[in-house]
């Protein structure tokens, strides 16, 4: 699982692969015949747009053809969702507020996971015995269904904001630990020998070798965890609703009142938040490692 996560999914845009080629282009950049910038853009935008249209068509098909009028509440057609969920300012406003509350929980949770997960992984990378001591417990921790410990979290951290953050941390911590540890341990044996030959201290080795070497894997972990922290925030909000209203509470409310248009709108908004965070980390990763990292090959 780690190896696949190490290579971020769908990270490369055409712009980035053009970047990769620049060092070889010595002559003034002549646009490649038949592949203009416009064409490249349309190549990457057209397929998802076409598929999006297809999804909406299927959605309409289910709402109007598969479902009878009296059962249409099961899946309202897209324009109803648009009108009641998004175009209605009052509802949209409520959604935005919920989203803001959940985003805050997700970011704080993710921040804690990043600091905690990276530190734990660095600690484990320093000695096999530490790794052996801690790792089984981390696996166990992440194998516990959140649902099972919801009451405990409530007792310990209350039924509001703090518990929501705890859920976000629990859900997003593991991929960061696993990916970071994998990255820290994947440095080339020969480079380690080189550092040994020149009497590098533990700290120097970490700073100049294992940590930079782990960056691509670390960011792959961040990206996965970023998405998970949004899910964690919403799940946490669903169970721990004290204080301001997040997306989880909204989902619960809409479900109780059978407001399926609003429900769908909330689902769409929360997945958009997840996508936005995922893309943001992808962008950051490209900024940090894009110049040097050779996708799909660790060999130097």
């Amino acid at each position, binding site marked *: 699982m780690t190896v696949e996560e190490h290579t971020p999914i769908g990270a490369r845009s055409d712009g980035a692969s053009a970047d990769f080629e620049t060092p070889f282009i010595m002559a003034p950049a002549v646009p490649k015949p038949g592949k203009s910038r416009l064409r490249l853009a349309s190549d990457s935008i057209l397929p998802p747009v076409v598929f999006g249209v297809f999804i909406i068509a299927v959605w309409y098909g289910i709402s109007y053809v598969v479902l009878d009028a009296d059962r249409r509440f099961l899946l309202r057609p897209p324009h109803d969702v648009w009108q009641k969920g998004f175009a209605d300012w009052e509802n949209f406003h409520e959604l935005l507020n919920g989203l803001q509350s959940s985003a805050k929980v997700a970011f704080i949770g993710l921040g804690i996971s990043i600091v905690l997960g990276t530190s734990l992984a660095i600690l484990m990378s320093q000695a096999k015995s530490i790794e052996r001591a801690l790792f089984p417990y981390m696996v166990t921790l992440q194998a516990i269904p959140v649902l099972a410990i919801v009451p405990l979290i409530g007792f310990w951290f209350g039924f509001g904001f703090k518990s929501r953050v705890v859920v976000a941390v629990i859900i997003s911590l593991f991929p960061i630990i696993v990916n970071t540890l994998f990255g820290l341990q994947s440095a*080339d044996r020969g480079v380690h020998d080189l550092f040994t*030959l020149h*009497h590098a201290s533990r700290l120097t080795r970490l700073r*100049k070798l294992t940590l930079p070497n782990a960056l691509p894997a670390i960011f792959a972990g961040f990206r996965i965890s970023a998405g998970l922290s949004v899910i964690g925030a919403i799940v946490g909000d669903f169970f721990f609703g004290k204080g301001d209203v997040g997306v989880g509470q909204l989902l619960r409310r809409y479900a109780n009142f059978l407001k399926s248009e609003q429900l769908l709108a909330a689902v769409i908004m929360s997945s958009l938040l997840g996508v936005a965070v995922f893309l943001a980390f992808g962008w950051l990763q490209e900024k940090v490692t894009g110049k040097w990292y*050779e996708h799909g090959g660790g060999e130097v």
Partner: protein
Amino acid sequence: MTDSGVNVAPTVSFNSISMVFPDGTEALRDVSFSVDKGEFVTVVGPSGCGKSTLLKIASGLLHPSGGTVDIDREKLGYVFQDATLLQWRTVRQNVELLAELHSVDKDERARMSTDAIELVGLKGFEDHYPKSLSGGMKMRVSLARSLTLQPPVFLFDEPFGAVDEITREHLNEETLALFQREGFAGLFITHSISEAVFMSTRVLVMSARPGRIVAEYEVPFGYPRQPDLRFDPEFAKLSGQISASLRGAHS
């Protein structure tokens, strides 16, 4: 290390080195020889006979099970079979790595790396990342990196095994030019007999495992050596002799 000429003691010497790995593999048995300053000694031998092990012992990465090595490890040049570059560093930053590990100050480092990069013919590529270099260029960066410390002893573990023949011959000539210029003691490992003869002042043949030195050949050619030395009848004769004793070493 700068007192060239007055150095009488050999720069590297192996005294009855033997190596048995914890799993019982006997890699080396009673290996003794030395390399003086201004010498370029090459060891050829069948795969798995313990050549890399020998260099690891020389560098201190491995401890022998018997015997001793006399060597100054303070500023050792060691070129591995792979370029072992740091992907996230540019050519210049890679070349500066060792000086950095030895806490050489910034200006001095910049000067060292500029010289080394120029020596290996990579001027103009200072700001490239390894991913945009060819295999041969990466090897040259690795070479330049070792050069920065001006090591009195240079260990090479099949450094050009992974590049094509033309590039290899180029790199051979460049390495020899460096050898002449820097005057280090070189200990070189290779599978290629012609590479061995072309580069060295002396060629040692190692037997199959457990590795022992079974033959020794002085190479009678002076430096600088021209590329067409490879077609000299004398060159062919010596290569033939080494090849014959290598075949003997295999059994």
